[in-house]
C-alpha cells in the first residue's frame, strides 16, 4: 500500500498534490511539501543506505540539515552528489539513490545558472523560528532595514514541527507583516553558511531546486547572498544529539525531535511502536505527538532517577538507560540496562541539545561549555551580534520569543532605531522544565557504540586514539575522522568531546571542541562561482580596433586582460609563414600595428619632471618640450620593473608610456610615491590608456604613407627628427604623431582619440595600399625588436635582471644623486662579473630554432646531473631579415664571451650556438631615419 505510514490528516503537506519519485530503483509517491526523507518514511523506507566503512545498514536519523546518515545521490533531473534526504524537497521526477560512499559528478556540463546578490541592512536575522521571527518583527517595526534568512521553505523554524497552532498562527502573521514591509527582505530556502569579519554573512538561496525539471531555465538555480549587516541576530536553533550505546546506529534509532517533526509537519509516522530514551524533557513532547498520531509508545526510558514513573498511561523507567538496540537491519527491540526488553521498531533518542553555534564560532565568537546545559554555548564575540533562543541554549518557546524580542530590540537600538509596536506574542502552555542529566557513553560493547554515524566512528575507535597518546580533541578527530564527514559533526561534535573527556577523565569544558569553519552546510562550487565564468571570469579588454582585427582574420594573444592581435594569417599560412611575411613587409615596405594597449599615463604638475627623475633610471628633466626619451624604471631592489617612452608635452606635463601588462602597476607605483613619500611634489597622474588609440606605422615607406595622410605635416627627417612628436591632423583627425621605433625602421606612432581609432586605422590602411601596407601583430613586433636586441620586460627579464644586465648602462644616469633602485646597484651581488647578461645567440647550423626556455651549457657532452647551467633562451625566432633563426639569452658573463661557443641541450642532442651581440640587424642604425 502506498504511503502506509502517512497519517490520515494534518501536517503541512499538500495531500491534493501527489508527487512521483524514484529512489533506489523503486517508484514511490509522496506529497508536495514532503522532503525526500519524509516521503520515504511515509512509504515505510527508513534504511537509505549502508555505512561507509563497515557497511552497516543506516537509516533516517534526523529531519534537517544535521542528518548524518541519509545521504543520497540525485541522478535526475541532473546528477548532484551527496545531499541529505532530509533537505531535498520532493518534486515530480526526482530520481535518487542512497549513497554509501562517494557521490557522482555529472559528465555533461551543468546547464543551470547561478548568480550572486549583495544586500546591506541594519539588522540581519538568521533563522525564522520563534526567536528569529520575534527579533525580525521588533527590528522591522522600528523602521530598520531587516534581512531575515531561513533555510526552510516557510518561516516558523522549530514551530513547524509542533502542533502549537497559536504560535504557528503568530508566525504566519509575522511572516506576512515582514513580507509586506518594503524595508524587509525575507529569504526562505536560504542558508546562511559563512560569517566573516565586520558582520559579513554569506548565504545561499536555493531558488529552483525544489521545482525539479520544471525549473524555469532563465532563473538562477542557486544564488549567493553577500550580506553586510550593521547588527546580526543569530537565531539558528539547536541540534538534538544522541549518545553512545550498543547498536545506536540501527535504522529506527531516531532523534526524538526529528520524529516529532515527521509526524507533525509531514504527517508521517516514522514507526509503529516506539521506545523513547531521554535525558531531558524535550522527548516527552515528541512522545505525546507520536502517541496522538497513533504510534504506540512502549515505554519511556528516562535517565533521570526522579522522573515521574507514569506519563499519559505510558510506563516511565526512571533512572534507567538503554543497554542496546537490537535488530537485523532495523530496530526490532530495545534492551534496557536491567535486561528488560521492549519490542519496538523505533527508538527515539534525546541526549540533549547543542546550540547551533557554528556561525558564531566561525567569526571568532567564543563557545563555552555550560555544565547545566550540557553543551557549548555562545560566550562573547567581537562582532555586533546577538544570539537568541535555542542557539543561546534557551529551549522553551516562550523563552525563545522573549530572547528574540530582546535581541531585536537591542539590534534596532544599536543601529539607531527605536522599537515600535509589534504583534502580541502568542501564549504557550509549556510545563516548567526539569533539569536534564548529561550522558555521553553507556556501558556496553564499545565497538558497536557509534559516535559519528557518517564516519563509522565508535567509542572503541576513540579509546584507541586516546590510548595511542592523543590528548586533544583535534587529534582524536584526525585519528578517527570523527566530525570530518558531510555533516561536519553537527550531531557528533559535542558527543565526541564528551566521549573523549569521559575516556580521559577530564572535564568537557577543559577539553573543548573542534573548530567550526565555513560553510555551515555544504554549498555547491557552481553557486560560489556564480556568473564569473567564461568571458566574465576576468574582464576582457579590447581596443577600439578589435572588430576590424576580427574581421580581418587576426588570431589573438591574451596579454594581461587585453586581447592583442597575435598575427594575421592569410589562407594556408601558419604562424611562421604569416610572421615571415609580416616581418618582410615591415622591413621592406610598410606595416601597421595596433599599439593601443600600451599603458599611457598623463603626468602633470610643476614637479612632474622631479618625480620622473626619481623614478626613471635616466634623466627626464633635461628632455625638451617636443622631444621623446626612452626610459627604464627599476624597483628599489634595482631590478628592471618597466620601460617605455616619455614624451614632454610642456614644461609641467609628460605623457609616459608603459608596457601593456604593467600599466596599472606603474600608475600605482607613481601614486604610491607621490602620496606617501613625496607629498610635497605637486604632480597628478592620470591613466589615459583608453583615451588614446595608437597605430604604429612602420617601415621604410612609412614616411610616404604619413605624408599622404598629413599633408600639412613636414615629415622629412630634418623637420621631424627621430624621438620628437608633433600635434597635427592625420586623415583629418586630430592626432599626435611620435617618431619612435621599436623595430629599427623608420616609424611613427599615430595617436588619436579612442573614438577616432577606426577612422584613422582605415585611412592608414587605404593610404598604405599603394605601398602594400601590411597589418602585423605582436609576434612580428617581437621578432623585429629582437633583431635589434630590444628586450621585452617580462620576457627577456624576470625580476632578477638589472639595466646593466641588459647592457643598458647608457640608460642609468651617473649624474643623478639618486633614483629608485640606484642604491641596490652597489650591493655585492650586483658587482659580480658572472651576472647574467642579455646577449644574442646564433645556432651554428644556421637552421635550428632554439625553444624559448632552453638552457645553455658549457660542455659538449652532458655529465650526470646536476649540470651547471649558463643561462637560458628568453626569445627565439626565425628571422626573415637575417635569413636564419636567432635568439636572445641571459648568459652568465655573456658580454665577456662574445664569439664563444656554448651548447643548448635539446632532447638528446646538444646544439652548438655562438654568443653574439644582441643587436643582429642593422647594428649601425642606418635604417631609423628612412
Amino acid at each position, binding site marked *: 500500500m502506498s504511503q502506509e505510514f502517512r497519517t490520515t490528516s494534518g501536517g503541512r503537506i499538500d495531500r491534493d498534490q501527489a508527487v512521483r519519485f524514484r529512489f533506489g530503483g523503486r517508484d514511490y509517491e509522496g506529497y508536495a511539501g514532503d522532503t525526500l526523507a519524509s516521503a520515504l518514511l511515509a512509504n515505510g523506507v527508513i534504511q537509505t543506505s*549502508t555505512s*561507509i*566503512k*563497515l*557497511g552497516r545498514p543506516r537509516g533516517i536519523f534526523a529531519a534537517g540539515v544535521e542528518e548524518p546518515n541519509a545521504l543520497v545521490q540525485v541522478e535526475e533531473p541532473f*546528477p*548532484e*552528489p551527496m545531499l541529505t534526504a532530509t533537505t531535498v524537497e520532493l518534486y515530480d521526477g526526482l530520481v535518487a539513490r542512497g549513497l554509501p*560512499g562517494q557521490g*557522482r*559528478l*555529472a559528465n555533461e*556540463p*551543468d546547464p*543551470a545558472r547561478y548568480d550572486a546578490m549583495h544586500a546591506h541592512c541594519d539588522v540581519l536575522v538568521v533563522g525564522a523560528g520563534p526567536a528569529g521571527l520575534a527579533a525580525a518583527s521588533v527590528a522591522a517595526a522600528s523602521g530598520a532595514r531587516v534581512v531575515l534568512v531561513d533555510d526552510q521553505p516557510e518561516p516558523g523554524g522549530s514551530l513547524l514541527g509542533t502542533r502549537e497552532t497559536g504560535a504557528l498562527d503568530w508566525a504566519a502573521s509575522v511572516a506576512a507583516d515582514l513580507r509586506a514591509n518594503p524595508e524587509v527582505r525575507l529569504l526562505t530556502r536560504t542558508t546562511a553558511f559563512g560569517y*566573516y*569579519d565586520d558582520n559579513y554573512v*554569506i548565504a545561499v538561496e536555493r531558488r529552483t531546486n525544489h521545482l525539479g525539471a520544471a525549473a524555469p531555465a532563465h532563473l538562477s538555480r542557486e544564488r549567493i547572498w*553577500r550580506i553586510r549587516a550593521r547588527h546580526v541576530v543569530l537565531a539558528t536553533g539547536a541540534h538534538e544529539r544522541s549518545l553512545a550505546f550498543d547498536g545506536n546506529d540501527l535504522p529506527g534509532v531516531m532523534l526524538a525531535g526529528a520524529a516529532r517533526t515527521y509526524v507533525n509537519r509531514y504527517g508521517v509516522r516514522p514507526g509503529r511502536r516506539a521506545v523513547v530514551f531521554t535525558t531531558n524533557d524535550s522527548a516527552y513532547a515528541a512522545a505525546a505527538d507520536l502517541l496522538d498520531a497513533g504510534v504506540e509508545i512502549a515505554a519511556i526510558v528516562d535517565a533521570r532517577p526522579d522522573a515521574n514513573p507514569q506519563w499519559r498511561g505510558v510506563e516511565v523507567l526512571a533512572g534507567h538507560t538503554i543497554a542496546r538496540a537490537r535488530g537485523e537491519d532495523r530496530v526490532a527491540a530495545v534492551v534496557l540496562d536491567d535486561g528488560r526488553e521492549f519490542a519496538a521498531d523505533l527508538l527515539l533518542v534525546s541526549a540533549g541539545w547543542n546550540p547551533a553555534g557554528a556561525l558564531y564560532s*566561525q567569526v*571568532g565568537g567564543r563557545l563555552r561549555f555550560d555544565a547545566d546545559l550540557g553543551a557549548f554555548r555562545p560566550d562573547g564575540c567581537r562582532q555586533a551580534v546577538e544570539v537568541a533562543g535555542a542557539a543561546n541554549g534557551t529551549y522553551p518557546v516562550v523563552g525563545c520569543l522573549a530572547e528574540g524580542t530582546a535581541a531585536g530590540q537591542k539590534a534596532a537600538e544599536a543601529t539607531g532605531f527605536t522599537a515600535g509596536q509589534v504583534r502580541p506574542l502568542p501564549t504557550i502552555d509549556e510545563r516548567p522544565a526539569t533539569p536534564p542529566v548529561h550522558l555521553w557513553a553507556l556501558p556496553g560493547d564499545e565497538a558497536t557504540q557509534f559516535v559519528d554515524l557518517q564516519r563509522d566512528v565508535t567509542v572503541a575507535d576513540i579509546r584507541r586514539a586516546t*590510548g*595511542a*597518546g*592523543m*590528548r586533544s580533541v*583535534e587529534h582524536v578527530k*584526525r*585519528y578517527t575522522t570523527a566530525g*570530518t564527514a558531510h555533516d*561536519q559533526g553537527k550531531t557528533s561534535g559535542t558527543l565526541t568531546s564528551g566521549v573523549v573527556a569521559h575516556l580521559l577523565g577530564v572535564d568537557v569544558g577543559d577539553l573543548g571542541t573542534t573548530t567550526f*569553519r565555513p*560553510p555551515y552546510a*555544504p554549498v*555547491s*562550487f*557552481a553557486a560560489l*562561482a556564480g556568473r564569473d*565564468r*567564461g568571458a566574465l*571570469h576576468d574582464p576582457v579588454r579590447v581596443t577600439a580596433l578589435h572588430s576590424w582585427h576580427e574581421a580581418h582574420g587576426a588570431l589573438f*594573444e*591574451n*596579454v594581461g586582460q587585453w586581447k592583442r592581435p597575435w598575427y594575421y594569417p592569410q589562407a594556408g599560412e601558419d604562424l611562421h609563414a604569416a610572421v615571415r611575411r609580416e616581418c618582410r613587409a615591415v622591413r621592406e615596405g610598410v606595416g601597421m600595428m595596433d599599439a593601443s594597449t600600451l599603458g599611457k599615463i598623463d603626468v602633470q604638475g610643476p614637479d612632474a619632471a622631479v618625480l620622473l627623475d626619481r623614478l626613471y633610471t635616466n634623466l627626464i628633466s633635461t628632455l625638451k618640450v617636443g622631444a621623446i626619451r626612452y626610459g627604464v624604471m627599476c624597483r628599489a631592489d634595482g631590478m628592471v620593473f618597466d620601460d617605455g617612452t616619455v614624451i614632454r608635452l610642456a614644461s609641467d606635463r609628460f605623457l609616459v608610456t608603459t608596457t601593456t601588462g604593467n600599466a596599472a602597476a606603474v600608475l600605482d607605483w607613481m601614486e604610491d610615491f607621490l602620496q606617501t613619500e613625496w607629498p610635497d611634489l605637486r604632480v597628478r597622474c592620470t591613466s589615459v590608456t583608453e583615451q588614446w588609440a595608437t597605430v604604429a606605422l612602420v617601415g621604410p615607406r612609412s614616411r610616404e604613407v604619413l605624408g599622404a595622410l598629413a599633408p600639412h605635416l613636414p615629415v622629412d627627417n630634418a623637420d621631424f627628427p627621430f624621438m620628437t612628436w608633433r600635434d597635427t591632423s592625420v586623415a583629418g583627425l586630430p592626432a599626435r604623431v611620435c617618431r619612435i621605433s621599436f623595430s629599427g625602421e623608420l616609424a611613427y606612432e599615430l595617436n588619436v582619440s579612442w573614438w577616432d581609432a577606426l577612422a584613422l586605422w582605415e585611412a592608414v590602411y587605404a593610404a598604405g595600399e599603394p605601398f602594400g601596407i601590411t597589418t602585423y601583430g605582436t609576434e612580428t613586433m617581437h621578432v623585429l625588436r629582437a633583431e635589434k636586441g630590444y628586450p621585452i620586460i*617580462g620576457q627577456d627579464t*624576470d*625580476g*632578477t635582471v638589472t639595466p646593466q644586465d641588459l647592457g643598458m648602462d647608457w640608460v642609468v644616469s651617473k649624474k643623478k644623486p639618486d633614483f629608485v633602485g640606484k642604491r641596490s646597484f652597489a*650591493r*655585492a651581488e650586483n658587482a659580480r662579473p658572472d651576472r647574467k647578461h642579455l646577449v644574442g645567440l646564433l645556432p651554428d647550423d644556421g637552421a635550428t630554432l632554439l625553444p*624559448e*626556455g*632552453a*638552457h645553455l651549457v658549457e660542455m659538449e657532452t*652532458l655529465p650526470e*646531473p*646536476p649540470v651547471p*647551467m649558463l643561462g*637560458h633562451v628568453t626569445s627565439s625566432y626565425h628571422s626573415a631579415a637575417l635569413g636564419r633563426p636567432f635568439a636572445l639569452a641571459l648568459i652568465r658573463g655573456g658580454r665577456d664571451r662574445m664569439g664563444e661557443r656554448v651548447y643548448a*641541450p635539446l632532447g638528446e642532442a646538444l646544439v652548438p650556438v655562438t654568443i653574439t651581440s644582441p643587436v643582429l640587424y642593422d647594428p649601425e642604425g642606418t635604417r631609423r631615419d628612412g
Partner: protein
Amino acid sequence: MAGPGSDLPDHPDWLWRNPEPKRSYDVIVIGAGGHGLATAYYLAKNHGITNVAVLERGWLAGGNMARNTTIIRSNYLWDESAGIYEHALKLWEGLEEDLDYPILFSQRGVVNLAHSLQDVRDSVRRVEANRLNGVDAEWLDPQQVKEVCPIVNVSPDVRYPVLGGTYQPRAGIAKHDYVAWGFARAADALGVDLIQHCEVTGLDIAGGRITGVQTTRGRIAAGKVAMAAAGHSSVVARMAGIDLPVQSHPLQALVSELLEPVHPTVVMSNAVHVYVSQAHKGELVMGAGIDSYNGYGQRGAFHIIERQMSAALELFPAFARAHVLRTWGGIVDVTPDASPIVGLTPVDELYVNCGWGTGGFKATPGVGWCYAHTIAHGEPHPLNAPFSLDRFTTGALVDEHGAAAVAH
C-alpha cells in the same frame, strides 16, 4: 560493502608519550609542526642527538601541517631550490619505510598549467632546468594535459585557455597527519620529548649565546635552540631581538564531499590561482590564493574562495555541482624572494627555519634533514647554505616568484 577509505591503513595503537618537560635539553626545537618534528627525528637518527625537546604551543602538527593541501613536488626553477626540494622528494620516496608509517605517499604526478605565451616560455624554461638538475620534468601540450587529467577543460573557448603544462610524474600527495605523526612517533621512540601546550614566551640569551627558553610551563635550559614556528616565526625571533624578512599571511583551502574518482593527478594553475587534487577517500582538496594582508587569525576573506571557485570551474566544469564541505585557513610566512630562510642567526646556537610560504609541506623531510645537520654541526648543510638570512643584504636572492612563479 567496503566503502571509500576503508582500505586506508589505520593509525598505530601507539604514537607518543606525553612527557613533562625536563629542566634541560641539548636541543630545543620550537614548533611541533612537520618541520620541527622532522628536524627532531633527523637530529636523533642522523646525528645521535636524542636529548631533544620539541615544544608546541598548541597541539602537535596543528598549524600549517594540518591545513595544507599536501602537494609534493620538486620541479622548482632555480638550482638552489631544486636541490633542497629534490633531496626532499628522494626522502619522501623512502619515508614510509624509514618511519614505518603508512604516509600514503602517492606519486600521481603534478601538472602546472600554462595559460599565456609567457607562461609557456617560463614553463619550458623550468622543465629544461629541471632536467639538467636531475629532476623529472616534461612539457605537455594541451592534448597531453588532457591525457594526464581528462577532466581539464583544454578548449580554446575559456577566458584563459590551457596552452599546455609542465608535468612531474614523481610528484604527488601524501596524508599530512600521517606524515606528522610518523615523524612524531619515530622521534618519540628515539627519545625525543614532544611537549604540547607549552608555549615559548621568551628566549634566554647570555653573552650573545642562547641558553634556554621561557615557556608557559617554566624555564627550560638548552644548548641549542632551533626555531621552526612557520607563521609565528617573526613572533618567536622577536624574542631574541631578531627581525626576519617575513610577512605572515592567511592562506585558505577547502575540501569537497567524497566523490567517485575523476581526478587522477594534481593540477595547479598559478595564473588563475587554483590547485586541486582528489584525496585518497575521494574528496577534492583545493587551495586558494593568498590573502593580501598580514594575518594571524587562521581565517581569510570569502571573496578569495569565490574567486577560486570560478577559476576551478573554468578549468574543471565537471565540478559544478560538487559541494564545499569545509574551508579553513593557515598562516604562511612569506619572504621577499619566495624562498625559505634556513640557517644560523646573529645569536650563537640559535637557528632559524622559516619563510617557506606555501611550500613547506613538500620540503618536510628535506628541510628536517638539512636543518638537523645545521644544528648538529653549527653550520649549514650545503643544500640550505644558499638560504641564509644574509642573502637579503648581499642581494643573492633565490627569486622563485621573480622567475616563473609556481610558489605552491
